[in-house]
């Protein structure tokens, strides 16, 4: 229970900070010359995208370690990370078209990064569906780990193949080999936003982790304490 409360606190603080970052982004950060106000969405879009992808990698890594160590905590973490990743991928898929309509003139384009995020979203939903379709906890954890690892391996393939197509998407302007080509105030706002999203990720994951732990306890009690062991 203490963990659940901690997760709620972290999330609460992160949401407050998010509001703060947005005040800064709207009021104190210069408006981009070409894109105008639409560019402001970038402070949500890009950090969410970074965490949507990172969450998948973390799911995959937790899955690899789960198959070796069979530690239920790793499985719980993978599930929590996948749930949060789904939400962040959803945020990217919603904010992307909102930005795309005024800038590209179309809500959706089969652009490399958009496609990649859509794939991530589908992988996450598949992962959560598989989890919900298996009732035995040990079996569920093993199956989910297998899918999680495959998902992690698939991501670079999609990455590579979507970049072979022409892209409309702005190229990375912060995370690139040369120095970021962003005015310092924008960069500062953006970095704050990344920090806030990191905190949000942690807060959400801690909450979901604590909840799935509680749910497992409940299942054990429901079975009359005859919980099934590792298969």
């Amino acid at each position, binding site marked *: 229970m203490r963990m659940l409360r901690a997760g709620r606190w972290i999330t609460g603080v992160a949401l407050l900070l998010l509001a703060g970052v947005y005040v800064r982004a709207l009021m104190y950060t210069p408006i981009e010359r070409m894109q105008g106000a639409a560019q402001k969405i970038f402070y949500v879009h890009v950090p969410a995208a970074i965490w949507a992808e990172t969450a998948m990698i973390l799911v995959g890594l937790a899955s690899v370690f789960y*198959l070796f160590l069979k530690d239920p905590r790793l499985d719980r973490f993978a599930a929590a990370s996948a749930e949060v990743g789904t939400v962040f991928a959803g945020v990217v898929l919603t904010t992307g078209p909102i930005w795309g309509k005024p800038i590209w003139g179309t809500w959706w384009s089969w652009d490399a990064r958009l496609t990649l995020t859509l*794939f991530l979203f*589908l*992988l996450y*939903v*598949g992962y959560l*569906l*598989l989890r919900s*379709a*298996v009732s035995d906890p040990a*079996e569920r954890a*093993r*199956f989910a*780990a*297998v*899918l999680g*690892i*495959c998902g992690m*391996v*698939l991501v670079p*393939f*999609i990455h*590579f*193949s979507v970049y*072979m197509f022409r892209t409309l998407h702005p190229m990375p302007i912060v995370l690139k080999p040369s120095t970021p080509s962003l005015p310092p105030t924008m960069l500062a706002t953006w970095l704050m936003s990344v920090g806030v999203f990191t905190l949000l990720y942690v807060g959400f994951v801690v909450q979901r982790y604590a909840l799935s732990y509680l749910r497992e306890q409940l299942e054990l009690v429901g079975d009359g304490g005859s919980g099934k062991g590792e*298969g």
Partner: protein
Amino acid sequence: MRLPDVVRHTWAVASKDLVIEFRSRTAIISAAMFVILVLLVFTFARDPTAVAAVDLAPSILWVTLTFAAVLALNRAFQLELENQALDGLLLAPIGRGSIYLGKLIANLVFVGTVELIGVPLLALFFNVAVWPYAAPLALVIVLATIGFVSVGTLFSAMTVRTRVSELLLAVLVLPFMIPPLMWAARATGPLLAGRPLSDIIGWLKMLAAYDIVFVGLALLLFPATVNE
């Protein structure tokens, strides 16, 4: 375990599945019928005056093959559900890797047979010249099929024991089929339009890389999908 043993065991598992298939023939005939019907659906759903058949052919080919493969993949482990045959298979003194490879080979033969029926029919129905490009087209199809059957065989071992196995397998495996499908369709287009093989070599390399990675990964992960 020595290599000849692995080969022998793999073949034992694969031939067992193929014999079952050959004796009943229900699944293969259903799959072939399904391919024919999908091709018919495309015939009647397209506007022949709007798009030339040769432009549409790669899409039709790959959509048909994808759906046929998804349907066929359920079969491999469904066979083992009756009379707890899977437990018997797992108790046999053979490696888990041999079971996976055997199932993979049986699935490849099954899906390959369906493709052997589908491709000539595509050529017939849509009046596409396939014969001059038969060898490179076969290579593209083989590479793509290994890619999606390897992942599909692994996943079907898991989904077969869930409540909504057929639908869940399709939902899980399609995101994994789309990259090889995309490359294969990109390679098929130029091929059928008579472009030289050097134009599509990049796609072939991608397909080969995908096959190697996912067959290897599935071999490693398969033991985790069956009960120990």
